[in-house]
């Protein structure tokens, strides 16, 4: 009786195994957090302290000047307008790319799960191939195609490229979600008079929130962190923050301003980091939901 009603007793004593586990977890955390800590410290020290001091020492003089400089004055090549130019560029690339790639992936996944399309299996196999072949392979052909279409070195160009590269994984994600949706629901919508797009819009999309969140997180971090596609396809005017950061760090004349570089780096990493912190729980839940159902 009591074994049914009382919750299992918590083990409070530290066994060797537990100590080992904690030791491993703490050292793993340190391994990843220490560099971030050093970067943060460095970014709020004046240069003389960095030149003379210890990497791990706390600053004697605390300054936000490097952050201001990184944001507004750091040189990214010929211009010295700071990393903020790249920040806004990244958003201009990110927003349409995320929306378009998710929309295309969801529509693809829906079509592949519910409609009998001739050659659907082959289409899907090709898409999956696309997900696993290293994407560098496609860069040169895509350069030619986009320049033929007049999209090379333009904002729409880089958005199209991101959408194309996002398609395989987005399609897979949504297909796996939709195959777990009961087919009767689709049939009911058809009897109710809906066509291809109406079923997608009114029935399927409203129940896709968890998977859309997962897709948005994957795409946001992926596209924000992208360097090579932005560098190749966006054009100098639209270079994303990652490319600008690289320029800040490489285009130093005279003394290397470590504190400004660290601040710029942290600023660049801020968006994906925020996404993870704010959505971590959702992310795990969405992945789990997909895993259990699909």
């Amino acid at each position, binding site marked *: 009786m009591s074994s049914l009603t009382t919750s299992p007793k918590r083990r409070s004593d530290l066994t060797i195994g537990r100590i080992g586990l904690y030791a491993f977890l703490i050292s793993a955390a340190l391994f990843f957090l220490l560099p971030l800590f050093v970067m943060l410290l460095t970014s709020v020290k004046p240069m003389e302290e960095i030149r003379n001091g210890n990497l791990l020492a706390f600053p004697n003089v605390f300054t936000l000047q490097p952050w201001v400089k990184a944001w507004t004055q750091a040189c990214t090549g010929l211009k010295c307008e700071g990393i903020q130019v790249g920040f806004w560029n990244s958003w201009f690339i990110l927003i349409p790319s995320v929306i378009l790639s998710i929309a295309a992936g969801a529509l693809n996944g829906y079509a592949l799960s519910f409609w009998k399309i001739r050659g659907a299996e082959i289409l899907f196999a090709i898409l999956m191939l696309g997900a696993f072949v290293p994407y560098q392979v496609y860069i040169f052909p895509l350069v030619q195609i986009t320049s033929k279409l007049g999209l090379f070195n333009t904002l729409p160009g880089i958005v199209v490229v991101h959408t194309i590269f996002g398609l395989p994984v987005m399609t897979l994600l949504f297909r796996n979600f939709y195959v777990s949706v*009961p087919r*009767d*629901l689709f*049939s*009911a*919508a*058809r*009897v*109710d*008079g*809906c066509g291809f797009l*109406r079923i997608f819009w*009114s*029935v399927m999309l*409203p*129940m896709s929130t968890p998977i859309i969140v997962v897709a948005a997180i994957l795409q946001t971090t992926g596209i924000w962190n992208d360097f090579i596609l932005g560098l190749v396809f966006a054009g100098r005017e639209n270079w994303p923050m990652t490319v600008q950061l690289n320029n800040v760090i490489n285009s130093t004349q005279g003394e290397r301003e470590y504190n400004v570089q660290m601040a710029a780096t942290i600023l660049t990493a801020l968006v994906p980091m925020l996404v993870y912190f704010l959505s971590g729980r959702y992310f795990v839940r969405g992945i789990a939901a997909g895993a259990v159902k699909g």
Partner: protein
Amino acid sequence: MPNISIENLNIKFGAVTVLDGLNLAIADREFMVLLGPSGCGKSTLLNTVAGLIDANDGRILIDGTDVITLEPKDRGLAMVFQSYALYPQMSVRGNLGFGLKVAGLPKAEIEKRVSDAADLLQIRPLLDRKPGALSGGQRQRVAIGRALVRQTKIFLFDEPLSNLDAQLRAELRLEIKRLHQRLKTTVIYVTHDQIEALTLADRIAVMKDRIIQQLGTPEEIYERPANRFVASFVGSPAMTFLPATLVSSDGRISAKIGEVDVPLENYPFKAPPQDGMQVELGIRPEQSSLGEGPYLAKVEMVEPMGADTLVWSKLGDCSLSTRVGADTKIIPGETVPLGFVTDKISLFSKDTGLRL
């Protein structure tokens, strides 16, 4: 008014043939039940009528018009699914009105129809809830309501009650029957529950192995099953089968069950029977009687079922069940006289399983 005619319907999934040259005509306002074991193709047939599955061959006529190329929405029918299939993100009101909204009906008209259906099905208090917050019986009512509001002349039901508990099933069964009497629509109703079939149907089509085994009124199906499968599938408690040999001498026909000889003078044979033929006597519990009759049976077991009692007894080597009044005093182990209602029982050929 809508009659439905299914002609030579062929459906294959890859190499598997599910329906093979199926013919079925459903009259206007008829309540047609498709009855059969799991996997016999009932849902496939219903979905094909609805336009959700493409036929490989054959025609489906509604009111004389071939609808095989029409989209589901253009066939003038509504459907209730086994899994309810309610839209999870819409309220009950939204679920009911969705089809009408898609069809572009004016708001006031939608509101009125939804409200009428909600009253008819007694789901008005649930209108603003989501399907997730409803019980199974309530969900099924909403699913029926969603079909009702479209005011079509044809309703398709795919095992609408099979996910409900016994009591709720009986309740909703009655409600569906009442609805049909009131709305007078043509209905095709799929089930594997023979009680549902017997209670609801105007006619029943018993399906198995890709074909319709028997098509008839509930009485016909119950009283004169066309073959051994229909006989065993319909009826609860089930029919018992006694293997026997036909003996014909001087124009007198009887069935020999071991040592026992059962005269069959008043059995309505379809064709003159042959001497020595191997047959099975199919006897429903109410087609034998205990306490009087020419044979002796040894009582094995007594099952009281409330209104009446089922008695299992042994005649020679064979067991059979008999329905007796609940107040009959019978004790296992005693030997009692047994008789058959020989004009009501069924006779099946041992070889073909067909009714003689």
